[in-house]
């Protein structure tokens, strides 16, 4: 097709990731993949929320990591066994850059739902 809509997108999969045991006893991990096609965005922040959208502790290699334009990055989120029942959403949020124009900036956030028993 010759017509193409604006390809400035933020995408994260899977929508329903599964917990897996990690190499550390008592810690589980979920594997996610982030694709960035927002040319104006280069950094994304990983967040973990409960049912009431309260932040929960977790661990990743980088809380805020760099994903270049048209790049896909796989990352893992490590969650304590004690927080497994509370953790509901793992989200990636785009970090918008400050501009010199009076404008509204759009910060996109895609959240996957953690559900089911760990594998």
């Amino acid at each position: 097709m010759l017509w193409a809509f604006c390809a400035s997108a933020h995408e994260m999969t899977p929508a329903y990731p599964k917990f897996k045991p990690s190499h550390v006893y008592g810690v589980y991990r979920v594997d996610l993949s982030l694709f960035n096609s927002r040319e104006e965005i280069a950094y994304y922040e990983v967040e973990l929320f409960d049912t009431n959208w309260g932040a929960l502790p977790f661990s990743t290699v980088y809380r805020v990591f760099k994903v270049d334009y048209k790049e896909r990055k796989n990352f893992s989120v490590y969650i304590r066994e004690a927080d497994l029942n509370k953790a509901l959403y793992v989200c990636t949020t785009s970090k918008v850059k400050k501009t010199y124009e009076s404008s509204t900036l759009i910060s996109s956030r895609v959240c996957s739902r953690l559900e089911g028993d760990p594998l």
Partner: protein
Amino acid sequence: MKYFMGILSLFAFPALADVNIVGTVAAKCVIQTDKSGVYGNPIASKLSTTPADGGVLPVIRFDVSIADSYTANITHPTAFSSSPSLSDTLAWTGSTSVTQTSVAGMSAYEAAKVLVDNTTIFNLTLAGSTWFSTASSAVYGAAKPFPGGTYTAVVQATCVAK
């Protein structure tokens, strides 16, 4: 006989096998920023994204692959993320609405949307693409002129798996 078998073994018989191609369709949500908004300054004390006020409405597109798997939560701003120093209060208003769809039934999202504080929640019950636009305006004090400088506010668009 053994010579015959030996001769047969020299022929290369094709290896036959059925190769299955397996794929899965998983739920996926993609947020696309169609248009970043711009604040217009129709009067000295007001900043607005409404086209009638000289602004540009931000447009966000949500693509979902499987029906009834996600909700679109769009938060209009209630504060500037960056601005000159302001000494008075700001009165914020904002709203989000469905402006375009890829399926006729998606126009029902508008009537079914839920407003929680400054967040509008749309239940994405159909697979396809939906465009949302967010109107935002801020009035400084009691019609007090805004000081000169750059004003930036952030619209948060979230796609939450159900």
